[in-house]
């Protein structure tokens, strides 16, 4: 279609400029996508608005969440005329996630504590004491130490136990190995071989409440989520506040501080109020029912305070319990002497919960790791 032997598609310049704008509002537009866009324009009528619009949507967008920003950027660039001389003033608002540092202490504090003072502090908080100390009473230095403890927790060990496809004495016939054996015995399958189907752990979905009432605990619990995500297990992490945010990707960084910073950047409503029922509903609607919760181990880490309608929460927990293999609820308040599930949300959710744990200190996290491993591996 190109005339002569011009190598660059004619629309490439415009495509590159548009791609840059999209990248600026968070779309994952690499060079390959931009080239794809230019190619697509060549096949369509680049003078026609609809064609340009669709060519871009098809080649530059890869998730429905991006559509809104795409539409706005399109309007800004093509309709308001970036081709015109004046630089378009961004009158239109884009939703760009703003980093929020409220989960994490400022980076400096952490660094300082990790270097000097921690050694001193540790003398006063021996590990044994720390294991039982309530997270709400932790000092920043102790959080640094907690990181080390959690790294040793071997949530990964529990979940990634090697269960490869193993030769077995009974089970499914293994024709591949039987045949190999038969070749050695002149085509006679003297010994039949068997194998057991590889057992894979169930998916684990962790939903961590980051609302104001959980502030004392969510910092430690998010570290637990981080340890789980980087363990390489099949694990998904969400935060619950006024809304639901998927943070698996943000937590997938080795460096825990960076991971938590990224996650808190993704979570917009940290330490706000909880609408637990609505968030759970969003989880089931968007992720759970479509397959993420099916046969999975679902862990909710929350004190059960719900500013919304608890009937919604009860209904959603029932849906989850029908989809999931096991529902584990972790409530840091449970450890208080004489605890009763007074929070209306907690009371509404409990009938649909299989395992109810406390999660207020390191020991209880060990218990939780054990319970998750049990549910994901053993009771199948």
């Amino acid at each position, binding site marked *: *279609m*190109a005339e002569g032997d011009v190598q660059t598609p004619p629309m490439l310049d415009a495509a590159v400029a548009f791609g840059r704008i999209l990248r600026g509002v968070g779309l*994952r537009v*690499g060079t*390959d*996508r931009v080239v*794809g866009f230019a*190619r*697509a324009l060549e*096949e*369509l009528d680049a003078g026609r608005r*609809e*064609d340009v619009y*669709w*060519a871009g*949507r*098809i*080649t530059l*967008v*890869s*998730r*429905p969440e991006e*559509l809104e920003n795409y539409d706005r950027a399109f309007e800004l660039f093509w309709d308001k005329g970036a081709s015109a001389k004046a630089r378009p003033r961004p009158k239109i608002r884009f939703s760009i996630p703003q980093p929020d540092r409220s989960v994490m202490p400022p980076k400096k504090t952490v660094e300082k504590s990790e270097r000097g003072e921690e050694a001193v502090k540790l003398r006063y908080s021996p590990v044994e004491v720390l294991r039982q100390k309530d997270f709400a009473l932790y000092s920043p230095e102790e959080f640094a130490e907690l990181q080390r403890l959690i790294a040793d927790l071997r949530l990964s060990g529990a979940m990634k136990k090697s269960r490869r496809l193993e030769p077995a004495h009974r089970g499914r016939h293994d*024709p*591949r190995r*039987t*045949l190999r054996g*038969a*070749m050695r015995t*002149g*085509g*006679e*399958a003297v010994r039949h071989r068997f194998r057991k189907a590889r057992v*894979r752990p169930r998916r684990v979905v962790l939903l961590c409440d980051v609302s104001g009432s959980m502030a004392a605990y969510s910092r430690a619990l998010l570290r637990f989520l981080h340890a789980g995500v980087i363990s390489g297990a*099949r694990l*998904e992490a969400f935060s619950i506040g006024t809304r639901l945010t998927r943070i698996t990707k943000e937590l997938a960084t080795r460096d825990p501080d960076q991971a938590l910073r990224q996650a808190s950047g993704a979570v917009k409503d940290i330490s706000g109020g909880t609408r637990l029922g609505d968030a759970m509903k969003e989880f*089931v*609607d968007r*992720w759970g*029912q*479509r*397959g*993420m919760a099916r046969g999975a181990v679902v862990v909710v880490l929350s004190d059960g305070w719900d500013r919304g309608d608890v009937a919604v929460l009860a*209904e959603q927990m029932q*849906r989850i319990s029908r989809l999931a293999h096991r529902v584990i609820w972790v409530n840091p308040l449970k450890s208080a002497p004489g605890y009763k599930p007074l929070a209306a949300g907690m009371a509404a959710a409990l009938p649909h919960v299989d395992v109810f744990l406390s999660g207020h200190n390191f020991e209880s996290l060990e218990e939780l790791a054990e319970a998750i491993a049990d549910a994901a591996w053993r009771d199948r």
Partner: protein
Amino acid sequence: MTEAANGRRGALPPGVSRSGDLSARLREHDYLADEGLATAIFLALKLGRPLFLEGEAGVGKTEVAKVLSRILQTPLIRLQCYEGIDVFQAVYEWDYARQLLHIRAAEALGTEEDPRRLERDLYTHEFLVSRPLLQALEHRGPQPPVLLIDEVDRSDDEFEAFLLEILSDFAVTIPELGTIQADRPPVAVLTSNRTREVHDALKRRCLYFYIEHPSFEREVEIVRLRVPEAENTLARQVAAAVERLRAMDLYKPPGVAETIDWTEALVALGAKELDESVVRATIGSVLKYREDQQRAANAGLSALVSGVGGAGG
């Protein structure tokens, strides 16, 4: 040069040179695509790139592959993904039973004494069982086949990485046999219900389209096209009711497939118009969860049927 390369990769049906032509062709085969989807399919065929379709269950993702195979008059090869799917189920497997028999026969007849040659005989095409992906690559014909990779989101990461490789090279290597390369890349259609995010690298290989529920007018058209026995009034009422159901915050909002099912059920009952009693009798064909049926009932079934077409307010 360009011409030849285009001819090799592209797979537009004869007589189609613009996306509008394709749209008309899709309609002839009872598939109503809006401009965006028609453009996406057109580009996928023209540029020879896989098409990645995402959207709620029942919006007609799988149908795209089916109608394409009819338009291109080429076989549809379908790979249904599921958790734990691996190369042996997706690409190839050796036919062990026949291989064993072959060894036995060779021994009984004494035709082959050299075990190494016997082994070489065993790992030939004759004993290979082709699974969908290999079938698609091996296909020889005037037009490449349509390869439907359904519900990619159900497979796991390792398999996704493998798909990425196949969709880049359109070739697979079987250790015992060598590399099998497609004559012409198949028309690949991947679908996802978004139970999880599919890796961006895979999406980058593809053209992407998110299919939404159709607009009211289009849905009426679809119903008329797919259930021609339905009266116009009925079709409009059904489409309006379905639109209201979708706004109702249900667990499983009805897709186009449910709209068609419902209309068929109504036609089978001889309904000419929608009223509360026929809705009650047939609600099971649109809403498949008891909770959803209850929610609709609580909202009032009469509200579903009021105000459209002949019914009047």
